């Protein structure tokens, strides 16, 4: 039950994030929308982890480890995107 609620929240966040990435034109807001989308995907995975609770664990550890790895990779992606964006903005000043 809890799992389903958060799984549905994840589904809504993926839709919202995708909408933001495609519709907002400011690059920083697109990056934020990408993070919303990523959060939604991780929540779906988290709901699946919760559903797989058992053997004395509150949640299936395998998807949990996958989410941890995913959060770090998504953070790395965000930093690269922000660095690219700031460089682009600085470059616009030069021109």
């Amino acid at each position, binding site marked *: 039950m809890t799992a389903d*609620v958060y799984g549905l*929240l994840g589904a809504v966040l993926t839709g919202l994030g995708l*909408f*933001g990435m495609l519709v907002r034109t400011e690059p920083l807001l697109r990056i934020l929308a990408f993070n919303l989308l990523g959060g939604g995907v991780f929540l779906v995975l988290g709901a699946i982890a919760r559903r797989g609770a058992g053997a004395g664990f509150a*949640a299936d550890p395998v998807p949990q480890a996958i989410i941890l790895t995913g959060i770090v990779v998504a953070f790395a992606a*965000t930093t690269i995107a922000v660095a690219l964006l*700031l460089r682009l903005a600085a470059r616009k000043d030069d021109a």
Partner: protein
Amino acid sequence: MIVDLALVGGILALALGVLVARQAFAAVALFIGYGLLLALAWGRLGLMDVALTEAAIGAGLSGVLLLAAARRLSAAPAQEDSPPGRVTRALIGAGCAILTCAVGAAVLLLPDAPPGLAAEVAANQRATALGNPVASVLMAFRGLDTLLESAVLVLAVICTVALAPDQGWAGPPGAPQPQADGPLALLARLLPPLGIVVAAHIFWIGVDAPGGKFQAAAILAAMWLLPWMAGIAPAPPIGTRALRITVAAGPALFIAVGLLGAMLTGAFLAWPSGFEKPLILIVEVALTLSIAAALALLVMGPRT
């Protein structure tokens, strides 16, 4: 249940707020709140390791990064694409609604008897000498993913360095930080010793309980970033050999130990039996330091 619904409502409201915000700064502020509530949601789901990581990286470090970016962009906005027309927007909206419905239906229609791996992890956890099941997955069962992820962080650091201007790219990373006085300077002096102790604690309990190297590394990175932002501790230049070795050491050691396992036991990343725990701890210490340095450099960003 009421708590969950309130939390879901709060997360949705903040996410919507991020999407409709007029100013980048406001959007980022709402996004940080979203990250914190998301960490609470992880706690409700029973994923404590993820909750800690989300709070530290998803809300904390991302927040610092994005706030700084929003401030710098308000002075010099980047170019924007032309906004889509109303018909396109409606089509995109319909597409996203379909995506939400499809994913939502898929989540609800997953098999009633969830086919997870919790029992397998429980059965094999003893062989990894780690008490925290998530740590067992990260360091043993799916060790390759963790190794590659640490390599991805090194790659990300290389990317941000590559995005510096040619002039002075090997100098200190990030924008120069003015010397702060008053409360920030005080905090930047008081907190780091405490934070390092907390990071060590979180690292250590991560062997058997929620916590571990990512969370500890994120706190360590924050403890470096705080005095840096206060202008007390300037970052070393990117050209510094010691800094580069710090970033590379953890993943390199991980690969080396993996190759050692391949030579001794015939499988890459196999921990020689009897030495699992000390070897895992050595690799994790090195990884924590490297990841902390990489995370801090990523938040500082390229030299401007």
